[in-house]
């Protein structure tokens, strides 16, 4: 009861009142007694007569294994290829063919299980899941329903409170299991001729299904969890996990209930093609269910599709209410046995053995470890390292700049995250497509460090560099005359001129109002067109004013 609410997110649906026949119950310790509506507006429950809702979100994620050949056959795995050219007789389900397990796929699943803190089952089994669809030529999918390869893990991820990067909170979602299974082919619907065209290139490609327990409570949490999983898979190399290429597919299970009551009927939402749509689809479905129930309706245990154009979920055609998959053991495959250093048999063929410990020792640094190392090594903030890892190639760019400049990493990070990244986002460019290379940026930052230009001037140079016309920072500085004034005498004269021209301000400063000094500094900057070192200017002004 209180447990359900407290495990929920700290954001939008947080609430503390429990409505019942006995009237409102005092809030659990520490929580203010308010309810939040879907968009974060505070709503007093008594005012609108609403009882609060606890949304529950679980995810089923299918990640395509990054391998040369398929899970049970030797045909190639490739995203773009002529239709039905990457299909073996087994993939087409021709009689007399048998599945032969790909060792690389087993290793990928073990790596992923270990990275997600799972127990890897030393003995796992394969099963057949039966259903009819044109892109499943055998009429069944080989999967692991009874005993999957890994179980009982966890994934930690971060969410921002109130959209503030500086207030990040760590959440955990439990991983129920990871199983190996076959992908299906692709159907292209030709409505004009009332037919479906089938391409079996994808049929039989290895998938890891990662099942996440319903520990999430909103779209933001779901998207953050999937993003972290994506980064982990890409770091491991077990899947390239690019959603746009169908290498990572997410189905969301959504339900709502009142605190203290049992879980509500859940719907499954499919056809979600990006992290952004995942958050939208989940939030829409939560809202739809709440509205339906508050209007006295009921929720059907159905499968719905997310319509990205309309931003809503709709019931799916062709999906009957209750499917009976008639699971049975896959008779052509013995149990999959994995070993560790203790159980390793003495004279077994090396190539036939998958050693869990061997794989564990060779796991690369996971994103969470990489972030911690960046914070420690460079003295940057945790939310900085979060952004560095979140943008493909940005960490490398940052580290390259740091090695090529004298500027401290703590200062460099500001230029990377505020200036470079915002330019990239504005122009929808990836780090790799940046017209400003790490070499150029380091060059620019060095000019600041050597006090040849001010930071304000540097920003101007950066916007010029962005045009990608091949000029160096120094070229632009000379062209636009942005060098800091090095001649102390010249600066003194300008300071004196400003002092002479601002009698009232000078009097105010001498009377004790130090803040007015900033106005004088500003005037000097204007006179010099931003070419004065502000620290030096302040010193000079203070010296003159104390005379």
């Amino acid at each position, binding site marked *: 009861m209180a447990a359900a609410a407290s495990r929920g997110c700290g954001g939008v649906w947080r609430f503390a009142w429990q409505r019942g026949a006995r009237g409102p119950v005092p809030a659990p310790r520490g929580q203010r007694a308010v309810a939040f509506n879907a968009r974060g507006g505070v709503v007093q429950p008594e005012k609108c007569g609403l009882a609060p809702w606890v949304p529950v979100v679980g995810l089923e994620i299918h990640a395509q294994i990054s*391998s*040369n*050949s398929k899970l049970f*056959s*030797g*045909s*190639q795995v490739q995203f773009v290829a*002529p*239709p*039905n*050219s*990457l*299909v*073996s*007789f*087994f993939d*087409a389900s021709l009689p007399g063919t048998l599945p*032969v*397990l*790909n*060792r*690389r*796929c*087993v290793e990928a699943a073990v790596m992923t299980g270990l990275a997600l803190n799972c127990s890897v089952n030393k003995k796992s*089994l394969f099963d057949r899941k*039966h259903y*009819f*669809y*044109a892109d499943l030529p055998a009429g069944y999918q080989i999967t692991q329903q009874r005993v999957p390869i890994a179980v009982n893990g966890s994934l930690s991820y971060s969410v921002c409170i109130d959209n503030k990067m500086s207030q990040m909170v760590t959440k955990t979602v439990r991983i129920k299991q990871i199983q190996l299974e076959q992908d299906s082919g692709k*159907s*292209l*619907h*030709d*409505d004009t001729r*009332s*037919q*479906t*065209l*089938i*391409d*079996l290139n994808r049929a039989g490609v290895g998938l890891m299904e990662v099942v996440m327990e319903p520990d999430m409570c909103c779209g933001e949490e779901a998207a953050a969890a999937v993003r972290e999983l994506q980064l982990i898979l890409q770091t491991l190399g077990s899947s390239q996990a690019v959603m746009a290429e169908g290498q990572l597919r997410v189905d969301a299970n959504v339900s709502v209930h009142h605190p203290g009551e049992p879980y509500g009927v859940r719907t499954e939402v499919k056809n979600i093609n990006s992290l952004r749509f995942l958050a939208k689809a989940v939030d829409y479905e939560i809202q739809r269910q709440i509205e339906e129930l508050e209007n006295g309706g009921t929720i059907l245990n159905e499968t719905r599709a997310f319509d990205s154009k309309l931003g809503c979920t709709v019931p799916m*055609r*062709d999906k009957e209410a209750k499917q*009976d998959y*008639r699971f049975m*053991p*896959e*008779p*052509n*495959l*013995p*149990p*999959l*046995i994995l070993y560790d250093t203790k159980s390793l048999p003495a004279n077994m063929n090396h*190539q*036939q053995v*998958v050693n869990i410990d061997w794989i564990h020792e060779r796991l690369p640094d996971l994103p969470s470890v990489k972030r911690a190392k960046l914070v420690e090594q460079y003295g940057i903030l945790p939310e900085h390292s979060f952004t560095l890892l979140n943008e493909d190639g940005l960490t490398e760019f940052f580290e390259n700049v740091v090695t090529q400049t004298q500027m401290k990493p703590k200062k460099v990070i500001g230029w990377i995250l505020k200036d470079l990244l915002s330019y990239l986002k504005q122009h929808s460019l990836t780090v790799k497509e940046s017209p400003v290379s790490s070499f150029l940026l380091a060059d620019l930052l060095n000019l600041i460090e050597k006090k040849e230009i001010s930071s304000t001037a540097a920003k101007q140079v950066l916007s010029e560099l962005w045009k990608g016309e091949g000029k160096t920072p120094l070229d632009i500085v000379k062209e636009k005359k942005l060098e800091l004034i090095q001649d102390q005498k010249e600066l003194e004269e300008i300071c004196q001129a400003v002092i002479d021209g601002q009698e009232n301000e000078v009097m105010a400063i001498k009377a004790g109002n130090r803040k007015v000094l900033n106005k004088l500094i500003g005037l000097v900057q204007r006179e010099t067109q931003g070419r004065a070192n502000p620290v030096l200017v302040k010193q000079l002004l203070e010296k003159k004013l104390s005379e």
Partner: protein
Amino acid sequence: QTVTVEVLDHLEHLALVDFRDSEGVERLQKAIQFADQLHEVNTDGIEPMDSVLEDRCLYLRDDDVTEGNCMKELMKNAREKVEEYFVAPPGNIPLPKLEEQDAFLQSS
């Protein structure tokens, strides 16, 4: 016990078999009776065997591309094709519902 009409209908939907006449249903009944003999064996405290291969070693293949590229051969058996695609009906064609079926099934 006899197989009910609901069970028959459910099986027909799942397996796309057709128990169109009473002989078919009779054969199904006999098959179930035959399989039921397994219940006569005392299996208390015995681990179920789900594959005669359970003591075999599951062979692991190297991740090499050794098959595929045989579209023409695969297409030889296709009744209908469009360019290099297999052709299928627009979706699963739903079987008639129980109420719509012939009366004879309900009387058997």
